[in-house]
């Protein structure tokens, strides 16, 4: 049973990393959003599995949150925004997709090396989880830094945060996980889409971050 | 009693240099004239000139200040004292330790300082020329002189002229001594404003240095200035004499006979030096002002070389 449990957790977490790669691969916003939904689903699945393993019912809340909020509401909302603001649908990568993928590989390798140096004192399950979580976090950062559109950056940030949730749930019996996941969801939803998009909407025609940088702080 | 005697000797020396200075100049002038087949002025002409100048009324430029009238006296006094401190016929005079060689050079510096200021006082262009060139020459001559002093101090271990005159004969011949001699001669020529650095007999030439400074002087002031010049020449001659041909200089407490011998010998030294200088001046032409630095630079180098040689050889 433990091996089975282990493998499943491994599978789900690994799946999350895989989906992160798919996210990196995307070149259209809608596609990106769909994949992000899948990302969230994968997250909620692994969280649920963790909840089952650790026998921690409160984690189901997190799983449900991930499923409902991240897999459904956010993608829909973003899709709305894209339509309303008439953002053009292509993702403008800074460097070529393939290059980004290579960098991603490197990051995953790094994550593995860093984490697997850790001796087995920590529960192996936690170790694997952490390794994957770190990989997801790094990939999310990579996405934020290699995409120009605001939406794709936000998506990158959210995938990063999924990695955090993964790590948090992977940690045996960590308190405040639910609260933290809530806080983060609210952070994302409330702030990103809320005031800021609104204010920026009222100032600029697009949330493409480039527009924000016409003014460079000093060029007065 | 002894003190009084010493004081008397000291006073004698002062009067001696004062009396001998014009004579030396007169002799040089006459010799030069003879060398160029002129009859030349009589030996005592300088005394006559001085006396005549002294009795004339002094004509002073309108905007000349008190400094202009003070300077001649300072120059004269400083030079005189300096000249009196150089042993002429006897060493170890009562006040000879009032100043060593460095102080004597510095005294001449004081005289020069006032002379140059006097040149600037009336505010004419000639005075300025003279002062600035004089100071430029001095700025090179003084280090050379210092090097000469170093060499002596290294050989004899003293800057006290009496000691030097007393000890140097025992030292014997030294390369560095020779170098020092050349350096000293060059410096002396430059400082006393002789050819080839300056021409004491010239006027109204843009090349003149010393004469330009004192251009505005007349009457008793001019007399004092001239006398100071004579004294300076005498000082250098007797300096060379007492350092490089110290033979016959009377030791202190030697009694009267050696003193008289020293006196005679001193006179002889002056004559020889004067003749040599005259020959030197007639055979050489005056150089352009901006060649002078190179001339003096050579002296500085020689002095430094001599010093270094001494330093090195002092090791063994």
């Amino acid at each position, binding site marked *: 049973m433990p091996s089975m449990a282990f493998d499943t957790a491994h599978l789900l977490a690994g799946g999350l990393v895989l989906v992160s790669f798919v996210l990196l691969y995307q070149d259209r916003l809608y596609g990106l959003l769909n994949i992000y939904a899948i990302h969230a689903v994968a997250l909620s699945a692994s969280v649920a599995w963790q909840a089952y393993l650790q026998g921690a019912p409160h984690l189901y809340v997190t799983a449900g949150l991930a499923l409902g909020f991240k897999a459904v509401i956010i993608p829909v909302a973003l899709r709305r925004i894209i339509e309303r603001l008439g953002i053009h649908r292509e993702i403008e990568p800074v460097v070529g997709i393939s290059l980004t993928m290579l960098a991603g590989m490197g990051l995953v390798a790094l994550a593995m090396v860093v984490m697997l140096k850790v001796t087995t004192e920590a529960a192996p399950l936690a170790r694997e989880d952490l390794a994957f979580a770190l990989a997801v976090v790094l990939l999310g950062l990579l996405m934020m830094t290699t995409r120009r559109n605001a939406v794709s*950056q936000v998506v990158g*940030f959210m995938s990063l945060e999924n990695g955090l949730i993964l790590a948090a749930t992977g940690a045996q019996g960590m308190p405040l996980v639910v609260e933290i996941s809530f806080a983060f969801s609210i952070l994302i939803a409330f702030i990103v889409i809320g005031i800021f998009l609104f204010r920026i909407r009222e100032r600029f025609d697009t949330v493409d971050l480039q527009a924000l940088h016409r003014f460079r702080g000093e060029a007065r | 009693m002894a003190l009084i005697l010493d004081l008397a000797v000291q006073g004698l020396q002062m009067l001696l240099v004062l009396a001998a200075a014009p004579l030396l100049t007169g002799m040089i002038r006459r010799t030069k004239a003879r060398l160029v087949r002129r009859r030349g002025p009589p030996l005592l002409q300088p005394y006559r000139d001085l006396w005549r100048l002294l009795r004339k009324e002094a004509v002073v430029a309108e905007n000349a200040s008190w400094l202009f009238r003070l300077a001649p006296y300072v120059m004269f006094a400083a030079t005189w004292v300096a000249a009196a401190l150089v042993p002429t016929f006897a060493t170890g005079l009562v006040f000879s330790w009032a100043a060593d060689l460095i102080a004597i050079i510095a005294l001449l510096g004081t005289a020069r300082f006032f002379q140059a200021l006097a040149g600037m006082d009336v505010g004419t262009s000639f005075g300025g020329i003279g002062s600035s060139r004089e100071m430029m020459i001095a700025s090179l001559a003084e280090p050379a002189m210092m090097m000469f002093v170093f060499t002596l101090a290294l050989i004899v271990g003293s800057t006290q002229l009496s000691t030097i005159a007393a000890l140097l004969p025992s030292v014997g011949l030294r390369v560095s001594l020779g170098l020092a001699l050349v350096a000293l001669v060059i410096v002396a020529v430059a400082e006393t404003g002789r050819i080839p650095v300056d021409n004491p007999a010239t006027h109204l030439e843009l090349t003149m240095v010393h004469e330009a400074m004192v251009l505005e002087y007349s009457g008793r002031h001019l007399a004092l200035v001239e006398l100071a010049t004579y004294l300076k020449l005498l000082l250098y001659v007797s300096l060379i004499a007492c350092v490089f041909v110290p033979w016959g200089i009377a030791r202190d407490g030697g009694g009267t006979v050696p003193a008289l011998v020293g006196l005679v010998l001193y006179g002889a030294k002056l004559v020889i030096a004067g003749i040599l200088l005259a020959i030197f001046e007639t055979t050489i032409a005056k150089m352009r002002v901006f060649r002078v630095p190179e001339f003096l630079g050579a002296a500085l180098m020689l002095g430094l070389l001599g010093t270094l040689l001494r330093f090195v050889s002092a090791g063994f």
Partner: protein
Amino acid sequence: MTLPFDPVATLLLTPLAAAAVLALLPGFRLKAGLNVLASLVTLAAAASLLFSARPATGKFLLVDDLNIVFIVLGSFVGFTTSAFSATYVQHEIDTGRLAPAHLRFYHAMYQVLMFAMNLALVSNNIGLMWVAIELATLTTVVMVGIYRTHEALEAAWKYFILGSVGIALALFGTILVYVVAQPVIGEGLDSMAWTELMGRVGEFEPALLNVAFVFLLLGYGTKVGLAPVHAWLPDAHAEGPTPISAVLSGLLLNVALYAVLRFKILLAGNGAAFAPGPMMTAMGLTSVVFGAFMLYRRRDIKRMFGYSSIEHMGIITFAFGMGGPLANFAGLLHMTMHSLAKSGIFFAVGHISQVKGTQRIADIGGLTVTHPFLGWSLVVGVVAIAGLPPLGVFTSEFLVVSSTFARTPVLAIALVLGLSVGLGALLLRLNSLAFGEPRGSLQPARASYLPMSAHLAIVLCAGLYLPAPLVTWFQHVASILG
């Protein structure tokens, strides 16, 4: 034993209650007054912590020698700033740069900020501390954007994005710490409580601790404003209202630094863990040199002092990274002096930019002629942060440099070069600001000089004389810091 009032509770509840009331109250003056009052009460509570017996350490709350320094300092700066902000914001309203509508939640936000920082400081739980700092960040984001101008919004947006990434990294580090602690201490809150962690840190898994510290250093380092994760700081300082700039430099940076320090102590407790010193030293040095060079090309006075904050945070981090009783003492002293001096400077700068109607350095000049008091106060402040006696910063810089040079000369020389480059820049700007031909408007300044003078006076006194109790206390803290 039960005190008539619980200082810690007051520390936390006063701002919270005040925030609630302020959010509802109408009328600007009333709000400003209440704001000052609440800050005063908070300060009183903090001060009482010094004298009354320490409250027992709970599961969530903790008051010990380390954080009490920060609490008192923070609530003091908070109080003076609230007093300053009253006059400042009044002037903004009169000149119409801020509409009352914008200001509706200003004071409430201010109190929320106070609450968040106090919470971060007294929390005994790394998760709770994280939440508190997160809250503080969000509040300041909103306040930075309050002018709603092009620039302000961009600054806020930048601050927000970078801040949240930093927060995310910090959270990851926190989780890692829990993961390290959990096998040793066991599941649940205990594995996140400082007191527990400190007790058992020796048995933790060192390699994982290292990874955790990397994330925490970068995450909270973003808040501290260390290069290269500093980017939000200058613009936030430049574009937000000046009271917020003062609070940021004088308070928020310290709180984030406090978090870093806590974890540093934790790692220092574990022998096998790779010492956090070198990393902190490296980042500190980078920040010093970077900040010093960035001072030169600044055109905006507030942004310039923002960069100077980066430089000084670098010095402090450097000092703590070096460790040892002298360097740690110096670090604490420098932190105190810097937050006082820098917020004092921002008070002065706030009045100056209000009088001159601009923040452009090129448009401000000859202040000692036109506004002697403001001008000379600015001179004193800049001289202070330039590290010249008789002001307090000199003492700490003296200790940092002298204690470092004997141990690692290369670092000390690099530090000295950075310091002198920064000093050159500050003096260059000071020349054109305070001296020379007057530029800009000559109208007299309507401002209360009290907060500014108080700060500078304290810095001056500290430069001349450090009271013995303070010293022994700092020394104790320094020994804790290891």
